[in-house]
């Protein structure tokens, strides 16, 4: 029991350390040279990729142990020695890019408070889910089940908070301007020291400009129209991808690093 509690606090510490790195990216992202930004992106991609790999490994092992004989040729083929790492690397690279750009572009303190609070909350929720599900779920599959439960609960709350913040944020009036001016307004406000970072920020800003312009052109008057619902669904999806990338980035804090995986050597 004491080992479990100690492990909990250490996981909290790791989660806070990862949140601190995210905060550093948020604070210094615009003044980072491209090389340093690339290094940060690699760290984030490694963290996210490792989480994806661990979960993929556990799911695959659970599938193989349930349906395939371990000594058969099919078992060796389906072991996923290549596909799981590749998928983890690709997923980690893309989500880390989304996370990096989103962290730099956060422009209100309240949003980052939500992110900072989400780190220990995820560990807490994971511990609670692990305890609650331990009597129901097989021991090997328990980390994935607890992760899904914790990520859904914490992610849902974070998403609700971020969407609420977006709902109450003020936006420029784009009703009487053309698309070029609207997009330019957003693109022009994004500056970074690194040329590549600036391009990424401006691409994201262009997306925001396009979405906001479409929203104000399609739904000039607030009301319960389908177009308005679609507009907010787009916001929701955007925030969901961001929250998912952030939680995936924190996942090594709850799933453990390369040295403490219970599945090590079995699936790899």
């Amino acid at each position, binding site marked *: 029991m*004491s*080992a479990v*509690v*100690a492990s909990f*606090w*250490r996981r*909290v*510490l790791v989660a*806070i*350390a990862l*949140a*601190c790195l995210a*905060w550093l990216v*948020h*604070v*210094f*992202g*615009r*003044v980072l040279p491209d090389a340093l930004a690339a290094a940060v992106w690699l760290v984030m991609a490694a963290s996210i990729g490792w989480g994806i790999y661990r979960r993929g490994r556990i799911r695959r092992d659970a599938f193989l142990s349930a349906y395939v004989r371990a000594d058969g040729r099919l078992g060796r083929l389906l072991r996923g020695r290549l596909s799981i790492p590749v998928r983890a690397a690709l997923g980690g690279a893309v989500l880390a890019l989304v996370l990096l750009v989103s962290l*730099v572009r*956060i422009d209100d*303190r309240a949003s*980052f*408070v939500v992110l*900072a609070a989400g780190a*220990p909350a995820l560990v807490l929720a994971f511990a609670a889910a692990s305890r609650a599900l331990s009597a129901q779920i097989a021991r090997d599959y328990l980390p994935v089940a607890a992760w899904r439960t914790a990520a859904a609960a914490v992610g849902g709350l974070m998403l609700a908070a971020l969407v609420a913040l977006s709902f109450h944020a003020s936006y*420029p*009036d*784009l009703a*009487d*301007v053309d698309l*070029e*001016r*609207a997009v*330019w*307004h957003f693109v*022009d406000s994004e*500056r*970074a*020291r690194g040329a590549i970072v600036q391009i990424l920020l401006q691409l994201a800003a262009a997306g925001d400009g396009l979405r906001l312009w479409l929203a104000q052109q399609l739904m000039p008057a607030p009301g319960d129209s389908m177009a308005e619902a679609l507009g907010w669904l787009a916001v929701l999806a955007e925030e969901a991808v961001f929250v998912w990338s952030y939680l995936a980035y924190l996942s090594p804090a709850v799933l453990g690093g390369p040295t403490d995986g219970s599945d090590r050597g079995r699936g790899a």
Partner: protein
Amino acid sequence: MAATAAAAHNGSRLRIGDALVALAAAAALAWLVMRVEPLDWSGPPETEIVLDGARYRLDPDGIRELETLSLDYFAAGANDARAIVAAEIEGALDRLFARARRNVPAFLDEYYSLRGEYARAAISLGALVGLAEPDKLEARAASMLLPEDEWVDALARVDTAIAGRLDANRERLRAGWLAEIAARLAHRRVPEPLPGVTSARPTLVLDEKLAEILAREQSAFATRQTIGATAAVGAAALAPVIARAATSRGGAAAAARGAARIGAAGRVGPAAAGGAAVCAPGGPVAALCAVLAGAGAWLATDWALIELDEALHRDALERTLHAALDELRARVEADLAAAYGELLAREEVRIESEIRRTFVPAVAGRERRAAGDEEGGP
């Protein structure tokens, strides 16, 4: 048992230690999140150019290129203006001196005539007794070749023509410069800011600025040009040069004629006495007859001497007059070119100064950027 208790005690201390570290880290993160603002990056100092209603954005290097282009363009425009002025002056003086040259034969006809001879004699006599200005003779000769009203009118027309052509040149320069700048800036165009949003960057409304510069220079040039024209009118005083040339050349001939006339009087004396004898039977009108006969002989002698002088010296005097006109034209042209050249040089200097002042944000931007590079910060 004791070992188990010690392990439990150590585990408890470990838990508390981990918890304290984690809580301290969470508190530190919360403090940082609430206290520290993200760093911003403004990038290189840029200037917004507004040209013909469109907006462009340039970094300091781009502004410097624009400044250099503008300086070169207006320097070339100043050369065009000098060529225009030179052409106008040349054309005006060509016309003016062509009229003067056309007056030369009439002047010579007058000069070699009894009327001209006696008019000059009367003026000389008047000058001797103080009834006429000493230079009246020269002024009269000058007015025959280059009448002052024609001279003044011609210079006034030069002023007007030059002002008009320079205005047209400025307008052409402005249009060409705008087209050149617009072509250079085409790929740097940015959309208008949103309504109610003002750009934090320095904004330079270039076409308005240029129009202001050119209008100011046009006005200043017009003011100075009056002075230039007045100074140029003073060159009309050079006209007596011609008269002096004519009278000095004619003076020698007149002296020769005087001497000849004295000799001729001696020779015509017996003729006059003979005339009196002829008139003697006339009774009381014999004296009048003698006077008339003497005057006729005087006039005939003068006429003959003038004809002789004309035959001998008219061509030389005509050449002297043409040479004097050439000299005068060259001096007037040089004076006018110098006067206008000074005006144009002043305008060029002022426009260059205005352009450099117009692009001050670029200079400021370069200084800011240099300072930023030295500090190595954003």
